[in-house]
């Protein structure tokens, strides 16, 4: 089998995929609600791993996967019930299977005894959990009677009759007679059950002709069933009360179509079953007057019962088929007459993940895609530069050039979107890891937890997906550890014993929003506040809103767990989460209702490469505002402007007071417009829906900009998300609206007691005044 060792890599690749399928399936299993398709898929996965392991001689793997497979097989047959213990055992088994694959891949022997415990648990599951004594399977184990002896050994076999039939057919196709089939053994035995409706004669048909026609096809043995024949006094001579079982032994060249032809005109007026006679399974033989022409007449208790054709091993009890057929006399028409019986086997297969033959995906090295993304980025800049130069040309001239450039802009945009979508991945790859985490956390804390997910197919840049794992892990742990109550407590306060953690993803205004919601006790604000004061994070006596208190949990070093548990409570959780999220250009917020639960909301950009922005000017500087944040821009009238006691300016916009932020003051830019009524106010909105009016000199226009990370090239700045290069070659900063809001709070609300640093959404802030444009 050395030749085949070249397929080892394929095997390991495929096994890794199968392991993932099995794991996902196992994690979805739950007691009481068993999806058989799922169980079948897991069974097949283990089965395939075993099959390949055998081919490469990985004996440990074969032995173990066999144990695993046996339990899955019993499970899909319904012989053992799904219990929580069993699921745990199966998950352990799946992990172990992965380890064994690892050893096989490294070509090292697994440590002796590695599988012992799990094998014992699997076997225990089999013996302890049986629903009922194993069902005797009505399958023949007796060697079938065959006209032509089988050609077989341990590894392979050919059924004698079948081969003979094939050879005969081949000889038939080969008029020269040089075919290899011998003409002696190529006879096929058909069993035909013909049960006409009793008014068949009225339509002018004559069963005798049909029987005669069959005789022309080969050797026939006809048995007439008289069971339905009424007493002479009741006999209606115009009706037919007979039915027949015919055994036809014909040349293999006589196809089923020839038999069908005989009954062509009565197909709708009879119950007809035709089966090519595979030898009869032994267990069916004693009761069924089936294939054998010499079979005794059927017992009186089964009047003219048409037994199931042996070839199909139907599971329908004969008692229901016969009377039904007799009573309705409508069965067996059209297709029915040609049906060989049920085709769905025991433990049938439902939908699977594996599609057909062709795949529609290719694997591409990530570097290649990133080069492509980069080039598209540069192209976007170049296109912007051309547009910039063209603006200087006298209007009305170069009409075609203008139009061409518009098209170029359009195509560039589409190209950018296509390239970005290559890097996009559904968040399901992250979400799918969470059931396992939830299970482990639930076990560690002794809580009962249900995980619900939605929006798994929401797509976002691969980098974002990858960097979501840690934050989500922290957040879910946190929800289970701190948020959810224990089952007893929940019951006492009238909640279901099991807490629910809901994980969802959706696209919202050009970003992806991920929420982790639990139905636990909510944030204990009194506790959070006293902890924050104790740790010196908040001044004693400071008045904070509920929302501000809730956001204290994102401060570095904050932890309210009374005892440091195994799970969270190491005091690094939520502030690390916030840092990771803001490193991705995202934000996190929390909304909590005491007694009802908490909702953590993550908002992240869909791509990290380019963005649609609005270029604005302040003094000599240019800034870019993400288009997704902009609501509108307007020039306020003096009457709309109001100064507040704390020097915070607000503006009345659309019936709502909006805080004004003077960018030139915030960033210390000289020679800028200081009067909002002479400049412009750009109304922007943050993820949590709060609005802000940015006072700028001018709005220059909309543009796609390529995001150049400030952190990797310089350092992180508050209120600034990243930088970009404009069409004229100048560097412009891309503003972070939520960051600006936080900065403006410092400058504007300096007379109010505030926790420092700010408890909300921005990162640790250096003094705002130090900030200069690049």
């Amino acid at each position, binding site marked *: *089998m050395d030749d085949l060792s070249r397929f080892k890599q394929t095997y390991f690749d495929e096994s890794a995929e199968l392991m993932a399928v099995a794991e996902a399936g196992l994690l979805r299993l739950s007691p009481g609600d068993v999806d058989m398709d799922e169980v079948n898929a897991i069974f097949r996965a283990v089965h395939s791993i075993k099959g390949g392991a055998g081919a490469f001689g990985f004996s440990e793997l074969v032995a173990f996967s066999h144990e695993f497979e046996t339990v899955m097989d019993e499970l899909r047959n319904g012989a053992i019930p799904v219990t929580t213990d069993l699921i745990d055992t199966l998950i352990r088994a799946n992990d172990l299977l992965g380890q064994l694959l690892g050893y096989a891949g490294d070509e090292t022997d697994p440590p002796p005894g590695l599988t012992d415990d799990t094998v014992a648990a699997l076997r225990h599951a089999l013996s302890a959990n049986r629903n009922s004594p194993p069902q005797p399977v009505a399958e023949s184990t007796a060697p079938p009677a065959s006209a032509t002896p089988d050609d077989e050994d341990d590894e392979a076999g050919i059924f004698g009759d079948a081969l003979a039939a094939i050879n005969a057919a081949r000889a038939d196709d080969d008029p020269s007679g040089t075919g290899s089939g011998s003409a002696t053994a190529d006879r096929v035995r058909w069993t035909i059950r013909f049960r006409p409706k009793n008014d068949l004669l009225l339509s002018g048909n004559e069963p005798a002709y049909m029987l005669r026609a069959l005789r022309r096809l080969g050797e026939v043995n006809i048995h007439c069933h008289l069971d339905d024949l009424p007493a002479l006094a009741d006999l209606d001579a115009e009706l037919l009360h007979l039915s027949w079982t015919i055994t036809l032994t014909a040349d293999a060249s006589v196809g089923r179509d020839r038999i069908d032809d005989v009954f062509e005109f009565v197909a709708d007026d009879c119950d007809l079953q035709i089966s090519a006679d595979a030898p009869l399974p032994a267990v069916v033989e004693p009761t069924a007057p089936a294939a054998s022409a010499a079979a005794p007449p059927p017992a009186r208790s089964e009047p003219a019962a048409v037994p199931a054709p042996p070839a199909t091993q139907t599971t329908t009890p004969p008692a229901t088929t016969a009377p039904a057929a007799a009573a309705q006399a409508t069965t067996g028409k059209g297709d029915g007459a040609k049906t060989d019986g049920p085709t769905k086997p025991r433990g049938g297969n439902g939908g699977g993940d*594996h599609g057909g033959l062709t795949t529609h995906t290719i694997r591409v090295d990530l570097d290649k895609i990133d080069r492509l993304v980069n080039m598209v980025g540069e192209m976007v800049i170049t296109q912007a530069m051309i547009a910039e130069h063209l603006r200087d040309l006298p209007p009305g001239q170069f009409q075609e050039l203008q139009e061409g450039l518009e098209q170029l802009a359009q195509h560039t945009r589409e190209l950018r979107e296509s390239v970005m979508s290559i890097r996009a991945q559904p968040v399901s790859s992250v979400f799918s890891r969470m059931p396992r985490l939830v299970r482990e956390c639930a076990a560690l804390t002794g809580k009962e937890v249900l995980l619900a997910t939605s929006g798994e197919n929401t797509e976002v840049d691969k980098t974002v997906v990858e960097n979501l794992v840690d934050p989500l892990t922290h957040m879910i742990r946190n929800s289970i550890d701190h948020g959810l109550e224990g089952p007893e407590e929940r019951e006492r306060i009238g909640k279901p014993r099991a807490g629910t953690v809901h994980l969802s993803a959706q696209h919202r205004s050009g970003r992806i929003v991920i929420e982790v919601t639990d139905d636990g006790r909510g944030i204990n604000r009194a506790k959070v506040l006293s902890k924050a004061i104790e740790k010196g994070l908040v001044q004693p006596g400071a008045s904070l809103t509920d929302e501000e208190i809730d956001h204290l949990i994102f401060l570095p070093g904050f932890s309210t767990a009374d005892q440091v548990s195994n799970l969270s409570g190491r005091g690094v959780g939520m502030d690390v989460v916030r840092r990771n999220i803001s490193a991705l250009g995202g934000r996190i917020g929390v909304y909590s209702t005491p007694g009802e639960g908490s909702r953590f909301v993550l908002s992240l950009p869909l791509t990290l490469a380019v963005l649609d922005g609005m270029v604005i000017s302040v003094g000599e500087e240019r800034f870019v505002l993400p288009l997704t944040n902009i609501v509108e821009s307007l020039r306020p009238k003096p009457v709309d402007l109001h100064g507040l006691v704390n020097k915070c300016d607000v503006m009345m916009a659309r019936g709502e007071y909006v805080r004004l932020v003077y960018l030139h003051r915030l960033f210390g830019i000289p020679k800028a417009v200081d009067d909002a009524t002479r400049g412009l106010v750009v109304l922007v909105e943050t993820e949590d829906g709060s609005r802000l009016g940015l006072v700028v000199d001018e709005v220059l226009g909309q543009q796609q900009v390529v995001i150049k990370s400030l952190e990797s090239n310089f350092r992180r700045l508050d209120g600034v998300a990243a930088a970009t290069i404009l069409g004229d070659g100048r560097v412009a900063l891309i503003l972070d609206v939520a960051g600006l809001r936080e900065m403006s709070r410092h400058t504007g609300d300096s007379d109010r007691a505030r926790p420092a640093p700010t408890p909300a959404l921005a990162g640790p802030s250096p003094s705002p005044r130090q900030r200069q444009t690049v």
Partner: protein
Amino acid sequence: MEPRVKKKVLTVDDSRTMRDMVSFTLRGAGYEVVEAADGQAAMTAIAASKVDLVITDLNMPVMDGLTLIRKLRAIPAHRSLPILMLTTEADDSKKAEGRAAGATGWIVKPFNPDKLISVVQKVCG
């Protein structure tokens, strides 16, 4: 004599590894091999072009091997198409099931390449 045309074998298995191994073995023995990942895909492949032999796994998603065999046997044109089942369980009941469904023969997995070739030659010429 007719010109020698390569016989075409369809291997049906949900395991890529297994399909690859069967294909490799039979191509080496001078057969043309096409692949399908389940019974449904096999039906499509057979409808699309004539095959001389089908080698099918039993346990597959969408449509399993025994169903595939029965469906093929119900089509007059394929009543004498050789069909081998490639199976890990070759006990008598499995064999009887396969025979009843209309299989021509069986081969155990993992298979010995020489054995596979010899059985294929016997049924397919």
